[in-house]
């Protein structure tokens, strides 16, 4: 049998598990909040077109609307000012082979559980590498925080001084991009940056460094606790939106059952 047929039969027989890393698109799912004078991220909305009724007797369907950055979503380099002049920086231009690839999962759930503003540092990455080996180039790195288990007000964790949620330090992102040449960075929070990420230099370092180097982001992931530290393969293809800076998408991980 060919490798692909082996792969298909492994999925069919459960040898390879498919893990859904996607939140349901739900009108009530939080989106990033900016100061109100700025343009805002559109919430996910569904409007019924017909429901087996006078508007369409035998069929039911909805019109849906949302932002490119609503729900579990992909960030393309064109999303950030640092990536705006890069070639192939929008979702329709990215080489599709980038949408499938290996994942390294750095478990920060203990720290994030103790500290809402928990930071992923270079030291934490190096400690992880001491156990699991150096992060290979062209890999997706996921920061597991178990933040996806939070609901309602706890998710954005908005206080008077802004949201409080974990994220990487500028040095950590720089290290992943420049020293490890990763493909992308994935998180369970609403953005790849920490809730207080605006106060770093540069502000929003994950967005700034990742997209400036043509790397990708994945946000609002879930079920990262079902992934091994290494060995899982990501399938995350954004919608092919002309000049799109991101896209809601179904994110799947393939995990080998031991």
């Amino acid at each position, binding site marked *: 049998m060919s490798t692909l047929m082996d792969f298909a039969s492994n999925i069919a027989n459960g040898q390879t598990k498919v893990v859904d890393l996607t939140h349901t698109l739900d009108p009530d799912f*939080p989106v990033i909040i900016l100061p109100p004078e700025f343009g805002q991220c559109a*919430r996910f909305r569904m409007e019924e077109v017909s429901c087996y009724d006078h508007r369409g007797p035998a069929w039911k369907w909805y019109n849906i609307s949302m932002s490119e950055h609503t729900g579990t979503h992909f960030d393309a380099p064109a999303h950030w000012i640092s990536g705006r002049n890069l070639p192939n920086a929008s979702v329709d231009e990215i080489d599709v082979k980038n949408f499938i690839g290996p994942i390294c999962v750095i478990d920060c759930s203990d720290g994030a559980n103790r500290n809402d503003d928990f930071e992923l540092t270079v030291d934490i990455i190096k400690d992880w590498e001491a156990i699991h080996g150096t992060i290979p180039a062209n890999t997706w790195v996921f920061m597991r925080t178990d933040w996806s288990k939070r609901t309602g007000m706890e998710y954005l964790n908005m206080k008077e001084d802004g949201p409080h949620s974990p994220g990487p330090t500028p040095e950590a992102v720089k290290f992943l991009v420049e020293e490890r040449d990763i493909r992308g960075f994935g998180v369970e929070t609403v953005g790849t940056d920490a809730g207080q990420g605006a106060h770093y230099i540069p502000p929003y370092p994950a967005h700034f460094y990742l997209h400036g180097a043509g790397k990708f982001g994945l946000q609002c992931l879930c079920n990262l606790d079902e992934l091994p530290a290494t060995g899982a393969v990501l399938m995350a293809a954004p919608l092919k939106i002309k000049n799109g800076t991101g896209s809601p998408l179904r994110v799947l991980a393939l995990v080998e059952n031991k």
Partner: protein
Amino acid sequence: MSTPLPRPKKKDPQKRSVAATRPPEMRSRAAMHLTAAAAEGRLVMQYCSECDEVLYPPRDACSNCLGTDLSIQDIASGGQLIAETTIHASPRLFFRERLPWRTGTIKLDAGPVILAHVHPDVVKHARVHVEHRLDRAGQGVFLARPEQATPHMEDEPMMRELSANPKHRRIFLTDAKSPHAPALAQALLKAGAAEIFVGEPESWRPHPNAAVLKDLGVEILPMDVTDEASVRKIAGEIGGKTDILINTAQFMRPGGILSRGDTGFARDELDINYLGLMRLAQAFGPSMCARTADGVNSAVAWVNLLSVSALTNAQPFGAFSASQAGAYSISQALRSEFRSAGLRVMNVFFGPTEEDEWYQQLPPPKVTSQALGRAVVDGLERGLEDVWCGDIAKDFRDRFRRDPKVLEREMTMGEDGA
């Protein structure tokens, strides 16, 4: 003396809900001027400028001099009851269901003798205070009540019919995050509202009203007027016991058409202020219309809070004004569609408010939320259709009525170049 109206018992679920009947609706076009005044709580009469006669009923020519230069003028509310009767039989279904009903003739201080609904507390030959009120058909009728208020006067069945009194009624404020929601809830509770439900969009975000509303003991329900499914869900839950709906949902950002450079905020303004109202009407309208004769706590009013810029575009809120004009137009469509059921649509127009942060850079006078709360309660208690709250709204109204083009021209002045 009127007896206090007890809080109604829970409804017997085995009994059929009473369907609405209405008093006669037809009026002459001349008489419609009286209804128009009643819609905002004014008492007016036709006046002949040729012979100074005050005319009633309204007509196309003066009954004294046959002059046709007839205008509408506000008149004094005083009068005297000269004859009265209590009706015990009527062929009109509306009155048959409400018998006995007291009527009488009143000699107005302004001159004419009119036929009026007479409050039971008015004693024979007494001086009376006359109001022009909207009845369940939405037409103006005269009400004669005691010159000095009597205890529990508003609790009389006649007064309940000629008002949208919030006492004992269950009220739904559609958006907890409105800067006016707490003051409205407070004013309505003070006015005797039985229960207040408040819709809360995006309960995943904190907001300052949450604690205040919780302390007031209102029922917070998750609902977002931009989310059709959430509106239908809440209507499914409380649509059948919403007696008064007050749409507090509003989105506003400063900006005209060119300065914004995109349609992002305009889309939000239309989605909340225009389509939001439409979604609410489609979800709550039918169940409210079905309950307009449902006893003491029947469905009685739909209240829209509108910026007075609905009348004419007001910069620097050019795009927002357009959404208000749209919402105003929907309110008129709803009046037409609610009319047969007798459900009142009350529009409360107001100018810039103290509480809304987007009006920060505008100078006073501004309306406070408390004033808005008082205006809403007063409008409901008097059964109004149009309420003008604050100096700016009244000034706009008067200028609009004088000449809409002049107002438009004044509101669209240019700026001299450098």
